[in-house]
């Protein structure tokens, strides 16, 4: 379980995240949506240790993340993908995955190098990588150089790298960005298949269709605050969410289509009345 407790992030005078609290429970897919600049990516980057936290706490199964260095956050069981793919381009696909399985202790690493540890461990790590690759349909590319793959495949390799270590929290930062319809559909199947009782998944996405179809719960953010949280149906019904999305053509369409016909459609001027928080 990933928990945000009164998390605030200040960039100079700008409050990018303002007192955000919510929980990401294991076993389900939690989507975080919101217009550009709402603070979704900032939230992910804080959890993964790329940005410091100005105040508040972020926890994975009770372990505080906000003071840990990045690699320790990974050891705590948090894995992520990136908005812009960040594979190790010059290495083979399977080596990319093996990076996530490198023993955390440096002493162990050195012992490994001099052949002081059983060979079986390395073989097992490798087998695990191939196993994950096979699950995501990437087996034929295992020995290909990661940078030479097509964009969609690279996105999948990144997903494979994130899950191979068996994380307890998986952050997916716009996994569908730049994918075509078929690829998005494939990705959707893979994400759904990843759902496991001990894995908390966070999905940040602009593709509302994907969000609405796979999320179990949705957190709506705007201007650094949590605007609403609920199931897809709840969110569809929520007028204020709609308003936050005004001027966000891609995203609004779906919600608007869903909400069309409702009678109490209130116009709220931007910046007003958007602090309401649904418990």
């Amino acid at each position, binding site marked *: 379980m990933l928990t945000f407790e009164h998390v605030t992030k200040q960039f100079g005078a700008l409050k990018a995240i303002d007192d955000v609290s919510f929980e990401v429970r294991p076993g389900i897919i939690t989507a975080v949506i919101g217009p550009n600049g709402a603070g979704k990516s900032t939230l992910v980057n804080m959890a993964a240790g790329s940005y410091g936290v100005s105040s508040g706490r972020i926890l994975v199964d009770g372990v505080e993340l906000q003071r840990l260095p990045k690699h320790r956050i990974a050891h705590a069981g948090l894995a992520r993908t990136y908005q812009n793919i960040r594979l190790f381009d010059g290495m083979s696909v399977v080596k990319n995955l093996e*990076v996530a399985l490198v023993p955390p202790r440096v002493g162990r690493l050195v012992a490994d190098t001099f052949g002081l540890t059983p060979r079986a461990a390395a073989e097992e790590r490798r087998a695990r990588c191939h196993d994950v690759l096979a699950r995501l349909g990437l087996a034929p590319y295992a020995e290909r150089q990661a940078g030479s793959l097509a964009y969609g495949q690279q996105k999948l390799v990144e997903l494979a790298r994130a899950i191979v270590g068996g994380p307890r929290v998986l952050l997916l930062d716009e996994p569908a960005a730049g994918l075509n319809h078929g690829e998005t559909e494939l990705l959707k199947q893979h994400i759904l298949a990843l759902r496991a009782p001990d894995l908390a998944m966070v999905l940040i996405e602009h593709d509302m269709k994907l969000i609405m179809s796979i999320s179990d719960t949705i957190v709506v953010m705007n201007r650094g605050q949590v605007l609403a949280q609920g199931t897809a149906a709840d969110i569809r019904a929520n007028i204020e969410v709609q308003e936050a999305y005004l001027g966000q053509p891609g995203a609004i369409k779906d919600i608007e289509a869903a909400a069309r016909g409702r009678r109490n459609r209130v116009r709220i001027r931007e910046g007003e009345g958007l602090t309401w928080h649904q418990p």
Partner: protein
Amino acid sequence: MTSDPPQTGGAAAGAQALAPPRTTRVWPGALAMALVPVLALVAGQFLPAYPLRILDMILLYAILGLGLNIIVGYAGLLDLGYVAFYAIGAYSWALLASGQFDIHLPFALVLLIGASLAGVAGILLGIPVLRLRGDYLAIVTLGFGEIIRVLMNNLDGVTNGPQGIARIDEAHLFGWTLSTPQDFLYLLVAMLVVVFLFVWRIQESALGTALSAVREDQDAARGCGIDTTRVKLVAFALSAFVGGGCGVVFAAMQRFVSPESFTFWESLIIVLVIVIGGLGNPFGALLGATLLILIPELLRAYADYRLLLYGMALVIIILARPRGIISRPFGPSWLMRRLGGGKC
């Protein structure tokens, strides 16, 4: 350097999708390396002293290249002060086996001491630098090389200053006296094999994977759980360790050391050895060392132009193969890239 089949022999396995048998991979390379001692044995029997001495230097620089390559080739960090570790090793032998302090330790022990001292120096130097962005390492190691030289020049009471230390002991290793270039040829060949196998192990182990990840994208590597600072530190220390060991052998071979042997230009030449040879390729290191030692010997009349040419060579090679040279491990991906027409 491109067509040694044994070295890339394990490569075919890589094409298959599911877990290729890894254990077989090391042996072709080891067999290839076994050929080198045979050749050396033959050369040692038939060549006169002068070419043997040159051969010794070539091997020494090849080993230095392999050592430096751990940090430059795998971790992608530029170390411009490698000569400092070499110097630490050389002065270890000079001080611990000479009349300077009338200490006369055995060669094998000093080999270990010198290499370890260099490794420790690497760790101490690495701690402030390696947690930062990689390019600081270049300038700090550059400075460190210079500082070590200043110390050698000025700690007269210890190092005898610019005059250096002469009349260093003859080295004995397990009852075998090391005095002629021929003796050192055998020693160096043995070292080359050991260091090569060592580097090969790094490449094939999780440490090598971690280092490559650091080279490719440090932030993403950290996100995958790699403690990049420590991994870099280990690589830096191992690299320094090899450099220190080479220094001990160098001092035993020359039986004289002075600060003049450890200028920045030596560091530059070692960098060039691996840039010319292709990073990570042991035969490449041999080739690079051969060119860089042999050409100046042949062109003694043009000695003034040597460094100018080295500089130009560095620029031209890097411009011609900016990526190929840097990310060229020996192994399947290396072969596949060569067969694939060098797309990257």
